[in-house]
């Protein structure tokens, strides 16, 4: 099954009140058979940290996508931590020059998850949480590194950053999802007492496997704003990497009602008619497990291209299929 990703960040109530930009930044990247997500939470005290956090996630997704196999082949974790930080700081130094500020003004945390060829790689510095899903359920990989007090943590610019960086690698086996979250999201998606993830995380991972990121991202950010940001003053962000599995079943294995909701078919006609509409969408999604052009699909459906396009439009809007170049394909595959 193919890995999918989605990420989003929203401004917290505290920052909205003081008109400070959202300092949580996320990025995702898939290339060379590697899929990477990254998240950085800019330091509250650093005036330019929203720029810093953006540079960090951009640079790190590119770097890990490029060097994934070297990173997981390296036996000495310290060298990996040093390399990640030196690449990060180099990018931040360039940014500091551009913005005419100090490195400290760009301080942020750093969370990375990447998969490639049956392996995974995780890196975490500072607060926030990295979680994953395997055949037995949601698990926590790394917990927040907060120091004793709530407003203390370690940043990429901290002197002791290398020692604080936590690294994990291994075979994916039955892992089918990863989540990175900032401390703002932690408040709703992580149980601090039991050190467990909220059940909602699994739903987010599942949606990431079923709905195209371009459609899912605004939904995710709306949900973060209206639900998660309500429980904190801080900015909220998550980045998700997931694939279909027994825990995250593919589209065709879902109950009719769930498919209806994913296809965004309203409950406004007779049950028989609704069922018919769902099965029609099912058929298109099944055919598009292999990418097809409009003409190829129309031929297989015995429909005109006009009618085929109309049906595709509905599914594109719902995000269950996407268009790559001139071909359409189902997201869940």
């Amino acid at each position, binding site marked *: 099954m193919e890995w999918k990703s989605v990420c989003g960040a929203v401004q917290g109530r505290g920052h909205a009140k003081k008109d400070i930009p959202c300092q949580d930044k996320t990025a995702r990247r898939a290339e060379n058979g590697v899929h990477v997500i990254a998240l950085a*939470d800019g330091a509250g005290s650093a005036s330019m940290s929203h720029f810093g956090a953006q540079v960090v996630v951009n640079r790190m997704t590119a770097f890990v996508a490029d060097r994934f196999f070297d990173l997981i082949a390296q036996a000495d974790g310290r060298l990996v931590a040093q390399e990640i930080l030196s690449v990060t700081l180099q990018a931040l130094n360039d940014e500091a020059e551009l913005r005419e500020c100090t490195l400290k003004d760009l301080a942020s945390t750093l969370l990375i998850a990447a998969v490639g060829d049956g392996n995974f790689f995780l890196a975490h510095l500072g607060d926030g949480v990295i979680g994953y899903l395997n055949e037995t359920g949601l698990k926590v990989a790394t917990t927040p590194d907060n120091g*004793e007090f709530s407003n203390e943590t370690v940043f990429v610019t901290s002197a002791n950053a290398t020692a604080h960086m936590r690294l994990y690698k291994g075979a994916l086996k039955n892992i089918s999802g990863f989540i990175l979250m900032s401390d703002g999201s932690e408040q709703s998606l992580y*149980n601090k007492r039991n050190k467990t993830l909220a059940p909602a995380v699994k*739903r987010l991972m599942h949606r990431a496997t079923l709905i195209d990121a371009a459609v899912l991202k605004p939904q*995710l950010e709306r949900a973060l704003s209206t639900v998660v940001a309500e429980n904190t003053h801080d900015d909220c962000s998550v980045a998700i990497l997931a694939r279909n599995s027994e825990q995250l079943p593919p589209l065709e294995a879902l109950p009719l009602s769930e498919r209806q*909701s994913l296809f965004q078919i309203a409950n406004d006609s007779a049950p028989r008619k609704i069922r018919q509409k769902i099965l029609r969408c099912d058929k298109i999604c099944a055919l598009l497990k292999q990418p097809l052009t409009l003409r190829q699909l129309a031929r297989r459906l015995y429909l005109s291209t006009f009618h085929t396009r109309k049906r595709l439009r509905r599914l594109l809007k719902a995000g269950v299929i996407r268009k790559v170049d001139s071909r359409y394909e189902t997201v869940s595959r």
Partner: protein
Amino acid sequence: MNDLLRKEDLEINPTPRVPICLCLDVSSSMGRIVGGDVRDTGRREFRDGQWWNIVEGGVTAIQEMIGGVQLFYDNLLDDDVARYSAEVCVVTFGGTAPKLIIDFANLDRQEGERQQKISGLTANGGTPMGEAVNMALDCLEARKKDYKDKGVDYYQPWLVLMTDGEPNGSASELQRAIDRTNDLAKVRKLTVFPIGIGDEADMNCLAKFSPRRPPLRLKGMNFKEFFEWLSRSVSRTSQSMPGDTVKLDLDGIKKWGEL
């Protein structure tokens, strides 16, 4: 689509807490008149190490302090964030031993008892300050342990020490309290606010409790202003995020205090 995150599938973690211990002098000298109309009775009494003229009427230092503490609570309760994050405990020292008047709890839960217990404070006996600070530090330690056990995040604890005289409890307890406070404050595990009330407060002794910040002498009897400032500072701290350095508005306090 609003079903992406359902409230019932989320965790509700407690708001990070700011634990504050008020360690207050209620020795006999706090019964001194600091304002209002008074009438001299002509009687004299020896209390808390000195002779006092007994008068009728007027406002005492302890009454002013009680008013300040109540105002502190009211201000915190009025603040949307501080209301749920600030936790206050009150230790008093008078008589021969310190007393834990109000133990740590959420402010709303303390509402009933605090009105009665704070209003009921009376000035009486000696100044066992060392014993009281040790009790205050024990309370803070116990509360931090509770937070850790229950997965509650918390900010650096605050100790507010207010006295109008000089300690006259056990010298070894006093030294132990000074050492403990210094050890914590030096590694930024505790914020200490030593406050001297009036001209007779032993500022040298108060200074020993605070390696980072000189003690403050309240100009006149500005309890109200001090506690207003304190509640504003708690509010700022309770909204700080990782990496924030909470700058206390010391200029604001200088206007009415003496540093």
